[in-house]
């Protein structure tokens, strides 16, 4: 384990892994409750256009990715709230547009090839630099801060939007807020697991927590714990076994889900049957 910390890039990678492992499942708990489990995927695809735009304009791809992903998230939320097109069709349109846009823009970039998108598509957490880490930390703090302040309202919104409106909550603002927060999270997690797998970190640990927890709060806490275990475990195994980190993280998270599913079944069965009047 010592040699993990001996290397600068591994220290950065571990710190990034912890931040990503905490943030993605925390946002994911609200997203899953809002029945938007695939939102992260949609935003991830759109963010690819942002990354390519960064290459094309010579700007930091993380920056352009945040901006484009946030705009995409706002678009998704507006379409969803209007309800004219069904939500999943709107998401699908953005999937394709985002992916195609990214590939097209990178092709237009002098000297650019789709190969340069690979680290963003599939993640390369060991390539995180000190400067990257600062950006990731800043964004992670921002995301967790928003959830801490607006958590109560977001809980009501994600539970039942109409009830939230009848309580006088600013539902349009909150809907946009959670969408933008999800977009920022996608960009934070993009370096760790890649844009194509980003949603897994927002959904799988939540699904795992759901098997074991009885409350919303506990589900979120467990999801964050499983998230960190998956990112740190995946990174460690990628270091020792020389396998791609993004895939290792997601497969580990899925393995955790399978275990929790079994344990959860067992726990529920052994629990005294609840009386239902």
């Amino acid at each position: 384990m010592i040699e993990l910390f001996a290397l600068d890039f591994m220290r950065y990678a571990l710190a990034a892994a912890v931040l990503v492992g905490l943030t993605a499942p925390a946002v994911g708990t609200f997203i899953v409750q809002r029945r938007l489990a695939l939102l992260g995927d949609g935003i991830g695809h759109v963010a690819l256009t942002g990354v390519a735009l960064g290459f094309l304009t010579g700007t930091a791809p993380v920056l352009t990715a945040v901006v484009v992903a946030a705009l995409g998230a706002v678009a998704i939320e507006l379409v969803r709230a209007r309800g004219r097109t069904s939500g999943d069709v709107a998401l699908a349109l953005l999937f394709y547009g985002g992916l195609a846009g990214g590939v097209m823009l990178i092709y237009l970039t002098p000297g650019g090839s789709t190969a340069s998108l690979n680290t963003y598509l599939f993640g390369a957490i060991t390539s995180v630099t000190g400067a990257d880490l600062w950006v990731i930390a800043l964004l992670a703090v921002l995301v967790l801060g928003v959830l801490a302040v607006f958590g109560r309202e977001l809980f009501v919104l994600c539970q039942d939007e109409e009830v939230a409106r009848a309580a006088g909550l600013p539902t349009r603002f909150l809907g946009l807020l959670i969408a933008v927060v999800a977009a920022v999270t996608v960009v934070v997690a993009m370096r760790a697991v890649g844009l194509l797998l980003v949603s897994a970190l927002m959904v799988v640990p939540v699904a795992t927590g759901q098997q074991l927890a009885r409350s919303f709060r506990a589900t979120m806490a467990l999801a964050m714990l499983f998230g960190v275990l998956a990112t740190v475990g995946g990174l460690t195994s990628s270091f020792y076994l020389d396998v791609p980190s993004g895939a290792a993280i997601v497969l580990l998270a899925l393995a955790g889900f399978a275990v929790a599913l079994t344990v959860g079944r067992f726990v529920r069965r052994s629990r005294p049957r609840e009386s239902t009047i």
Partner: protein
Amino acid sequence: MTAPVAHDAPPDGARKAAAVPTAFRMTAGRISLDGREILRGIDLAIEEGEVVAVLGANGSGKSTLIRALLGLIPLSGGSTELYGSAPARFRQWWRIGYVPQRLSVGGGVPATVREVVASGRIARQSRFRPTSAADRHAVSRALAEVGLGDRAGDPVQTLSGGQQQRVLIARALAGEPDAFVMDEPTAGVDAASQRHLAGTLSGLVRAGRTVLLVAHELGPLEPLITRAVVLKEGCVVHDGLPPHAVGAHALPGHDHVHPHAPEAPQAATGGGMSGWSDAAIGSRRTENLDL
């Protein structure tokens, strides 16, 4: 408990002059959803302290009416007011406790009974202040009131339909509102829970709360109701004393079979649900199912 006589005829002008403030008002209300007219020509004023039941067959627009009164559905004509303000300008949302038709469990993330009931405090809470002792006290009292104190730590998903209905009522109670707006609080609820609800409601009525509820049939709630508004095909056909149980045939939708309303359900089921948010679709769907 006998019903006060004051509400028999609707002398609207006389009421306006009275000192009792109006909780809900709709003037010349018209609502169309996807080009289909659901409600038309609705003039309704509900004063503070009234206990009003909105009755009617499936598809007569009952749920639409109360959701429009809260500003949850836009009107295509006319206006609504909550305590004298248009819904968009209304700021005292803590005065209203909305009880939707059923508990929405969202995407399946578990939530305990206590968590859901505690969310009823949201209109009274400030964003940057943590949950206070008063919040916790109100939540515990609401849980005790509906008899779910011992289930506080259980996930709402494990509760029966009647118990979930009690959770929804407890959530509204926890906010300590002045007015309760309940969408079919008795639908799909077992007899024991219905009696429990009647007990809770009579406490609210004694405390002078305003209650506006949609019901398919009143059951044990009947003695509490001071005024009934009966809808038929989107219009108010009766506004006054509640029709008595013996005269249930006077009510559209008295029968679970609905022999006389072949066209009415279509009004609600009709094509364009696509125009609605998930929550709205969910509640409209149950509206159509509440046979």
